[in-house]
């Protein structure tokens, strides 16, 4: 086994498994082959699993759309659409304001309540954008393509596993 500084690598390489010899591995392979034949997993099962998972989304805590309002700000540049959307989950309220940029993209300014540092992801079908909220719970995405997207609020990088589970919003159209 190659030496490693990382105890994790050692685990991953199964270092302690030197005690099984080739015959043991052959026996296990043989058992695998037999059970694979005499009692195979139903062929459609992975697909059914995949489907049911896709229906549920990836996160534990699902925020719901709590409020949405449109306002037209009439300024020097003419009519400009701004939209405010609020999501509620048991642990967090997420409010975002969506403003259109001149180049056809949108800008998103968000606030978390209660205010806290978190990693924020904006996921759309093509890519995932990242941002962090500050101590006041503020975050922003300056340049977001229009279309369907959802937000995922995760634990802040420095306190992994600490401040609460990830929260995911329903998809909205930007």
């Amino acid at each position: 086994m190659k030496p490693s500084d990382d105890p994790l690598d050692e685990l991953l390489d199964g270092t302690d498994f030197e005690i099984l010899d080739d015959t043991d591995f052959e026996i296990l392979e043989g058992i695998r082959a037999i059970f694979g034949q005499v009692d195979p997993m139903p062929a459609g099962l992975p697909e059914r699993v995949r489907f049911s998972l896709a229906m549920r989304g990836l996160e534990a805590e699902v925020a719901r759309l709590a409020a949405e309002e449109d306002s037209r700000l009439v300024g020097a540049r003419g009519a400009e659409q701004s939209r405010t959307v609020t999501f509620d989950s048991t642990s967090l309220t997420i409010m975002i304001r969506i403003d259109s940029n001149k180049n056809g993209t949108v800008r998103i300014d968000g606030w978390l309540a209660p205010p806290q540092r978190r990693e924020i992801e904006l996921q759309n079908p093509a890519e995932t954008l990242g941002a962090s909220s500050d101590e006041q719970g503020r975050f922003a995405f300056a340049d977001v393509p229009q279309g369907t997207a959802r937000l995922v609020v995760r634990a802040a990088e420095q306190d992994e596993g600490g401040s609460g589970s990830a929260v995911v919003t329903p998809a909205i159209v930007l």
Partner: protein
Amino acid sequence: MMNATAPTGPSDRNARMADLLDAAQGGSEDALGQITAELSPMLWHVARATGLNTDDAEDVVQTVWERLLFHLTDIRFAPALVSWLVVTTRREAWRVRSKGRRQLPAEQEWLTAVPDQAAGTEEQVVLDEQQRALWRAVRQLSEQCQELLRIVAFVPRPDYQSVSAELGMPVGSIGPTRGRCLAKVRALLADELDGRRA
């Protein structure tokens, strides 16, 4: 003995699973789909090894994957994923079994699926001579050994250690003594070979 197809190196596989786990934690449904495609057979055999019928085993596999969604971000690396899945599947399978319905030995149709002698009708599974010898040996083991070996046979090789530790049943025990289940199989196979020679 059996010719195993050469597995990809453990480190390659680990790196790939680690990447998939990362991506799934990042919200990639595709990565999660790949993980479920790769590991569902293992879950199936873990569930069936506890004696569940096929419908219940399917339900258990679904339930475990759904439950994983709630724990995905807690799982730090691939072997932890595999052992979490095995342990959760086993626990869930036993929970379903203990509800007391449909747990007749007769439901274990795979027990009778393999003829002891030559393969017969086309409905029956065709195993070669070596496989039949192995099957006869495995069938003589205690239920616990049969379950353990069935589970471990479907665990990716680099994850044997963490899984067998979780199950409290070392596959290859620590030190010079080989794990008793595998040792027993080897002894039975050796007996059979001697018997054939005699």
